[in-house]
């Protein structure tokens, strides 16, 4: 399969889960490594927003908060139109390893299509096409 629906990374961090959790789930933490400015309402359904000095911004909706082991949010798929309803789901999992943390991030949903988008992408553009092509050929032949 060539289309990546899911991205997964695991890193070992030499700091305890509680410290990693703070970096992932507080405005101060997120602004220090992810965005340049951040706000977060840390509860399921809460909103978070990051801004970059480039002018870009990202709005996230908090989905899972299980301190200090699971933090999940959804956000807009970068590159799609602003009003596109599709979102990817990002989940961080923190697991204590000795004095440090094994942090796994999974982002999934890149290959999803909403029902409407599926219809738009795959519906029969062929309807009427055969006759239009015929007209085009006639036109070119006559030219």
């Amino acid at each position: 399969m060539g289309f990546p629906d899911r991205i997964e990374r695991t890193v070992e961090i030499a700091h305890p889960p509680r410290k990693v959790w703070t970096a992932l789930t507080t405005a101060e933490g997120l602004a220090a490594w992810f965005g340049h400015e951040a706000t977060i309402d840390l509860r399921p359904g809460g909103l978070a927003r990051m801004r970059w000095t480039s002018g870009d911004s990202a709005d996230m909706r908090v989905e899972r908060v299980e301190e200090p082991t699971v933090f999940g949010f959804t956000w807009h798929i970068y590159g799609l139109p602003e009003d596109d309803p599709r979102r990817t789901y990002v989940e961080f999992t923190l697991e204590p390893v000795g004095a440090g943390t094994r942090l796994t991030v999974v982002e999934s949903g890149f290959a999803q299509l909403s029902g409407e988008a599926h219809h738009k992408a795959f519906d029969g553009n062929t309807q009427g096409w055969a006759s239009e092509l015929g007209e085009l050929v006639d036109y070119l032949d006559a030219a």
Partner: protein
Amino acid sequence: MPPDIEAAAAPVLPDVEAVAAQVFTALADPTRRAILAALASGGPATATDLADRLPITRQAIAKHLALLAEAGLVTAEPGERRRVRYRLRSAPMQVAQQFLAALARDWDGALGALKDHLDRAPPGPPRSH
């Protein structure tokens, strides 16, 4: 996790990939890129309009428009005979953009920044609230 996302993704994967593949195939050809760019910047156009604007024969344009229509990247607007206009369809582009978004998602860079941040953050209260 929200169940809808992964549940919705699985059954449509082959189609999504096929659509993305058609977009990238279409974009691999400079003439087709020129046609798509002309439709994107100037709006719907007839094969004749495109032949006037691009250094390509009408015959070649017709051939490429047929391929683009098959891939769903352009659609022929119903219209007066001999004035069939072709219009860009954005839906397949958006599918291809999802593929590009996955490739451009730089978690390696973000996680590296997270590690750097934690390594240089001064030891302080374990909780900020």
